[in-house]
């Protein structure tokens, strides 16, 4: 039996070793099947000004899903072409999403701490904000990372094309290069990784430089005196935090009854409490019904619970009501790909579309629209193309809101368990009992475990507090590995750190947490 297991492992190693040879064979086969000489010459004779190329794998979209897929394809020995809209790979995440927003949130946190330091006996003068320099620093971070990706592409011999792609059929793309010129690109396999874009509020379209979305908001054109954030999701709260820390009076309007709809309320609570202090106002159960531009700003009409002043004027308005998949790719109708009602490309567990040679990953292939999910999908799709039996089958995709405090969760949430009427045990460890949290003067956090009462297995983890985004990784591993509460409780965590709270929460489950006394139920 043991011998058998060993054999299985060595077989897998062999598989990996054979990877390159195998994909070479695949390349030969692809050439035979997809690019017959006569067709290529036919294409040439039709339009002599166009060049015609071929690639084994083309990845359309160069975000974290796309470049991860392209790089893995190259590592497995494929000839890869990567198409992106910018000078270097990076996508929304690096150019106008995760990375620049985190750079700015770092600044926001620092600004906040300088104020909080007064409580600790350190008093700073009012900060002087040099907006150009701040913007420049943020941009340097973006340039460094995207430039790095450009270098990595070259090192891997991935052909990076800045331009736009359109399908001509199920095995050919037309590329419109940004530098000028067009080309036809025949491909063995394609991966669509075109991502998503900010959604607009239906019926409220207004063309104005005062209306920001996440992209223009991150450009920091100026520091407005007042800002209305439409939508209390993670993008609105993160950017709202940035602007508030720079001195803007921020108002958030959220249609539902709470911030971060879908997240567990006990995790959101510490954040709402803090945001109430940082923001001018948070209007829940409230809707924007009209926007008109005036000399001094945008006039807003409100409706609902928060509409005490049914009309207000804001210097700027940030629309952050979600994102829409970029599935309106030219020529998609010339393939067998199907798009569902929400605009997502339909894929199977291998991320293969209804057109067998074309795969789709990331935001365009479905929720949750998160960079790390796209990366994992991209790698899965490439492995599937390379002939491995793989599937996109995560047990937990972590979600992180980089506000202050951060909120992070993975796996099953309490909200979801309640909605599905599933019996779960919840173990909560309040950070008021954490030594590390005390040294940070932050006792508002909480770490909680969602546990299967039958097996004591960790089904989900939720954390609110500074650094929650880093801490959640342990939770993801616990869920993926099917860890039991005992496993977390018996794993020594370093002291004094916030990571201890994960172990402590597991101890709470057993009623024996060192740092927390819970009276026994009689």
């Amino acid at each position, binding site marked *: *039996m043991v011998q*058998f*297991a060993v054999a299985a*492992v060595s077989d897998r190693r062999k598989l990996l070793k054979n990877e390159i040879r195998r994909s070479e064979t695949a390349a030969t086969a692809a050439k035979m099947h997809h690019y017959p000489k006569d067709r290529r010459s036919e294409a040439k004779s039709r339009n002599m000004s166009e060049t015609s190329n071929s690639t084994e794998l083309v990845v359309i979209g160069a975000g974290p899903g796309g470049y991860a897929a392209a790089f893995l394809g190259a590592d497995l020995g494929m000839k890869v072409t990567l198409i992106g809209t910018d000078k270097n790979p990076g996508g929304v995440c690096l150019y106008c999403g995760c990375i620049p927003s985190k750079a700015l949130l770092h600044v926001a946190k620092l600004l906040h701490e300088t104020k909080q330091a007064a409580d600790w006996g350190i008093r700073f003068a009012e900060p002087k904000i040099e907006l150009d320099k701040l913007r420049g620093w943020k941009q340097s971070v973006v340039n460094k990372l995207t430039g790095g990706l450009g270098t990595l592409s070259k090192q891997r011999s991935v052909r990076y094309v800045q331009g736009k792609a359109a399908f001509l059929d199920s095995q050919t793309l037309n590329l419109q290069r940004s530098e000028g010129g067009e080309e036809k690109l025949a491909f063995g396999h394609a991966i669509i990784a075109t991502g998503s874009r900010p959604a607009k509020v239906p019926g409220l379209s207004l063309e104005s430089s005062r209306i920001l979305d996440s992209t223009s908001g991150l450009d920091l054109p100026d520091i407005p005196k007042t800002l209305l954030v439409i939508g209390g999701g993670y993008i609105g709260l993160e950017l709202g935090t940035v602007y508030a820390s720079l001195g803007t009076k921020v108002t958030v309007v959220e249609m539902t009854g709470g911030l971060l709809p879908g997240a567990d309320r006990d995790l959101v609570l510490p954040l709402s409490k803090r945001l109430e202090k940082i923001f001018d106002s948070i209007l829940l159960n409230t809707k924007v019904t009209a926007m008109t531009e005036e000399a001094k700003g945008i006039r807003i009409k409100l409706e609902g619970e928060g509409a005490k002043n049914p009309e207000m004027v804001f210097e700027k308005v940030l629309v952050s009501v979600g994102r829409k998949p970029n599935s309106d790719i030219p020529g998609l109708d010339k393939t067998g790909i199907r798009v569902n009602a929400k605009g997502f490309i339909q894929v199977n567990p291998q991320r293969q579309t209804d057109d067998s040679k074309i795969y789709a990953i990331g935001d365009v292939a479905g929720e949750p629209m998160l960079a790390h999910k796209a990366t994992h999908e991209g790698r899965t799709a490439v492995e599937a193309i390379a002939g491995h039996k793989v599937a996109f089958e995560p047990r937990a995709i972590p979600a992180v809101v980089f506000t202050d405090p951060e909120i992070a969760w993975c796996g099953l949430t309490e909200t979801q368990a309640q909605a599905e009427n599933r019996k779960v045990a919840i173990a909560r460890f309040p950070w008021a009992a954490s030594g590390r949290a005390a040294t940070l003067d932050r006792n508002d956090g909480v770490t909680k475990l969602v546990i299967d009462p039958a097996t004591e*297995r960790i089904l989900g983890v939720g954390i609110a507090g500074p650094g929650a985004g880093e801490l959640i990784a342990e939770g993801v591993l616990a869920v993926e590995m099917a860890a039991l509460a005992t496993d977390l409780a018996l794993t020594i965590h370093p002291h004094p750190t916030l990571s201890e709270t994960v172990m402590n929460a597991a101890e709470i489950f057993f009623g024996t947490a060192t740092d927390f006394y819970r009276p026994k139920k009689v």
Partner: protein
Amino acid sequence: MATEFRIPELGENIKSGDLVKILVKVGDSIEVDQPVIELETDKATVEVPSPVSGVIQQINVKEGERVNVGQLVLTVNGAGETAKPAEKASAEQGPGKDASFAKKETAKQEAAGSEDTRPLEAKQGEAPRMTSIQAQAHPVAAGATETSPARPSRAPVEPEADSETEGGVPVPAAPSVRRMARELGVDVRQVHGSGPGGRISAEDVALFAKSIITGVSGRLGMASPPLPDFSRWGAVERHKMSNIRRSTAEHLSRAWNSIPHVTQHDETDVTHLKELRKQFGSLAEACGGKLTVTSVALKVVASALRVFPQFAASVDPAANEVVYKKYCHIGVAVDTDRGLLVPVVRDVDRKNILQLSSELSKLAAKARDKKLALEEMEGGVFTITNLGGIGGTAFTPIVNLPEVAILGMSRASIKPSYRDGKFEPRLMLPLSLSYDHRLIDGADAARFLRWVAEALEQPFLLPLQG
């Protein structure tokens, strides 16, 4: 119209068997329920009856061949009369619904999206009546249909990525293990996890894969050090282990390895019982049975189990739970020329001793004639094994997992018994109770065995206390 007969579902976890004997030949006219083949599976040898009637056109299997569930056995030409449930199902399912395998069935259900294909078990009405197991007919003609197995088939289902959950909880396996399973073509949902909380390890997957390949249910088999070369000391002969022998070996190893066994010995005075058996023996014979000590013991044990319910329980170590059973089916070990078989007598507590005698005689005869159905060997809560017919003064039977106790009976003999100041010759029956010490304490075992001994000594105690 030609009608096919394929190997039907043979029971849980049984995918194949050795075809011991073909009981019919081409040209024979067969009736519904007529036995056509004899199959030896891991659990028993069973006669598989035909679900169809007609003249046999072709036989597609050979004796000695290993056959799989779903394999074509023979085709019948003629009236094509199929077993009743088949007709019923076909009438309700409409044409073109192939529901023979779970895989196809699922696909079809998705495609058709119709709800009336779902409750197949409910629709099927009574299961086909036969000596052993459900059978099914596969008419060849296009548009014709067939029954579906009452029990869902274990045919390999293409692992679906997003549905790897059991009752909403995802299968407890690490990403590396899930990937390995996928590479080996194993549906990780079917793998038994040996780790805490049922966690599935890479080894569990490898064992499962191996069990699929070899058809052995593996794990606690007979892993032993390599054997010496016996021929150094004299001539030897090697014989293949029969499926029943191998299955018995695995089952008993598993029981021996997982149950901390203790055996409690006692003795009961059956002098009076012997007289009663003589007195009422003819009554039992009139009912088609034999009034044996075992049939009386069945009744006694059934009553004892009501007083001591933990002796009919099972241990669920994974859940840290004890499973108490509200039914009273008792297994009786039967010695056959093919090995040990344990038919189970149903609802012993609701039958009188005469009924039990006749049922036991029938089951024992069936076991010896290879006619025992798999269902007739399942569901026991306790086992009785009587070696008294052969001899012996005591032995230590192995508990029949997942049961927790087994009562062994040896040969009764006349012994001097000291009563009222003098020795009297009494017929004494030795009893040996092996039990699972995880669940049963020594004192309880002694009490249980004393209760049984006293009830056998004085059968009137049964209606009095039982």
